[in-house]
């Protein structure tokens, strides 16, 4: 029998993944034969130049988009065969999202936004979960802002709300797509440190898409994509190392 993802210590995995967009005339191969696993408890960065397929890979791993061919597992569940509503339920129980656009519900206040995943699941947080949420809110410095609405917060604060919401349910895996894309460098550092802390201290698995070498240097592991293929898979590196690899890649392509 093949080993399951759990046996391999993976929270998400794709094998021989292909993804193309468009029809035969206007075909774009966004991903070509990608096989990669996200390890449990690790902070993984997915890097690559613009258009290399980072977002596409993340969307497919999270079940937001479908593969053209290949297999996709979330935990031990093969999600390529799931229908939309099963996929949605799986997503809301096991996955958290932090996007460049914060995806907060503008009409709910901060507290409403953070609790929304529980509400969608038709339950209230348990005492233990509530304690965790309170801690998140305190660590993220949102205590005074709970009654405000997203538009009354700065970009960095909104992103912190999105982080709190993504971590609140303690999902198996948090996907972050350019979470610092809209933030200045100081706020970026804050947000990245938070993600790093969540991973180190609470064992949160995180997969973060970025093209910023500094952001990637916060991760435990860096998967490099170029032109829809995995071209490198390395452990923690300095921004300088990452930059030089990226420069080399751009020179090649």
């Amino acid at each position, binding site marked *: 029998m093949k080993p399951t993802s759990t046996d391999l210590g993976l929270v998400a995995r794709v094998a021989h993944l292909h993804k193309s967009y468009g029809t035969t005339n206007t075909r774009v191969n966004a991903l070509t034969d990608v096989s990669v696993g996200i390890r449990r408890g690790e902070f993984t960065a997915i890097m690559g130049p613009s258009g290399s397929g980072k977002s596409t890979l993340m*969307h497919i791993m999270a079940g*937001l*988009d479908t593969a053209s061919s290949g297999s996709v597992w979330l935990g031990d569940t093969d999600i390529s065969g799931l229908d*939309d*509503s099963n996929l*949605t*339920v799986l*997503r*809301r*129980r096991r996955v958290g*999202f932090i*996007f*460049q*656009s*914060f*995806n*907060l*519900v*503008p*009409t*709910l*206040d901060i507290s*409403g936004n953070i609790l*929304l*995943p529980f*509400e*969608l*699941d*038709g339950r209230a947080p348990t005492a233990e979960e509530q304690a965790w949420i309170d801690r998140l809110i305190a660590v993220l410095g949102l205590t005074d802002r709970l009654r405000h*609405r*997203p*538009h009354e917060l700065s*970009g960095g604060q*909104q992103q912190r709300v999105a982080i709190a*919401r993504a971590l609140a349910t303690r999902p198996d895996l948090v996907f972050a797509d350019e979470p610092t894309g*809209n933030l200045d460098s100081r706020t970026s550092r804050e947000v990245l440190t938070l993600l790093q802390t969540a991973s180190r201290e609470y064992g949160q698995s995180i997969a973060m898409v970025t093209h910023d070498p500094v952001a990637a240097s916060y991760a435990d592991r860096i998967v490099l994509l170029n032109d829809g293929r995995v071209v490198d898979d390395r452990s923690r590196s300095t921004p300088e190392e990452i930059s030089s690899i990226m420069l080399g890649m751009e020179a090649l392509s």
Partner: protein
Amino acid sequence: MSVAVSLAPRLAIERIRATKGAGVLDAMAVLAFTVSSWLALTVAGGTWMFFQRWQAEGALPDSQQTGLAITYVALACFACALLVIPILGLGGGAARLGARGRVRRLASLRLIGMTSGEVVRMSVIETLVQAVAGAVLGSAVFVVSLPLWQLLSFQMLPIGFGELLLPWWLWLAVIGALLLLAVASTVLGLRRVTISPLGIARDHTPRRLKTWRLVVVVALVVAFLVYAQFTNIASFIGLVTTVVFLALVIGSINLVGPWLMQLVARPGARTSNVARLLAARRILDDPRGAWRNVASLAFLGFIAGFVVTMPATGEGGTDTFFVHDIQTGVAITLAVGLILAATATLMTQASQVFDRAAESIALDRMGVPATVHLSVRRRLVVVPLAVALGTSVPLGLLLSTVAAVQLDSFPVVGVSLLAGTVILGFLLSLGAAEACRPLQAGILTEQRRRND
């Protein structure tokens, strides 16, 4: 179910409290449901009144009127048939209101784990809340407006205070039909845009509308004209089948309307005049939407065209009261229609302001001046309306030949009603476009955060 039930009202209330823009749309949806239920009840009430006068022994002063009583019922039913479509259209429009804005908002809920079924249920509940509020308000307006009708008389009898009041079951049926329609429109509207969690409401690329639409309508019109030659309208069955057939023909205008919009707009998409180009592109982008904006007025134009010859239809010996009553009835029908159309136009215009917010902002940032926006809006009103009336008025005139007997004089009343309808139709639509200017300005100045 539970999620949708618990979340929908909360989100709706929060939304009304939080954002000025969305509040306007919600208020407008309630207004539309109010107007449509008020007028639906009024029209149904009038028909009920004639029905009762026909049924009750000795309700009418003399035998000649007693003989005509059934005709009044039939004509009232006819007016109902004519107004059903704009009334339902308004209800449906209210349900569709701000659909794109809604889609964007719902996408983030999809992302964090709301299933598409839950999204639909939640929207249905939102719509139902608005529709029920509108139905309650509309019923209230209906009751309050009852005394005013006493100023009018039919069959030489003033309208009595309680005469228009519907029995509870009829009231329930009318309101129930409106609510059902609202729900159906919401479900269908959301089905068209599959709300993806990635937020890109995959707007279907507009397909070129096919010519079969025209063929169907022409075939129906010809069939109707032929059919009418062989039917005796004077008999009850003949009248009913004619009315049903006519309703079918009227409904089919909706098939050809979008096609016509596309036909007229296509040359505009190849011009260098910015305003003309933008207006044409928007029509081509959504010809059905462009048609919907003017559909109510097109029906009115049709009705006004259809009735031009009506007042002269009375048989030789008929008293002037009959002609007078018909004129009153026609005027009421047209007035009701104009109120419906004005509300519908205002609503679609406002909703488009929000639906097109992103595009307007982008154009504004690119330096497209405000005068161009205004010119685009006016074109978007006038061009489709001209096309719609240019089709529906002649069609109404053509079909009216079925009912008309020979005209012994120029139909002054009919023609002035027609002219009045067309002029008011244009004025009200342009007025609605102007009324949306503050909304548009608000969208452009609002310090929108890039991501919410």
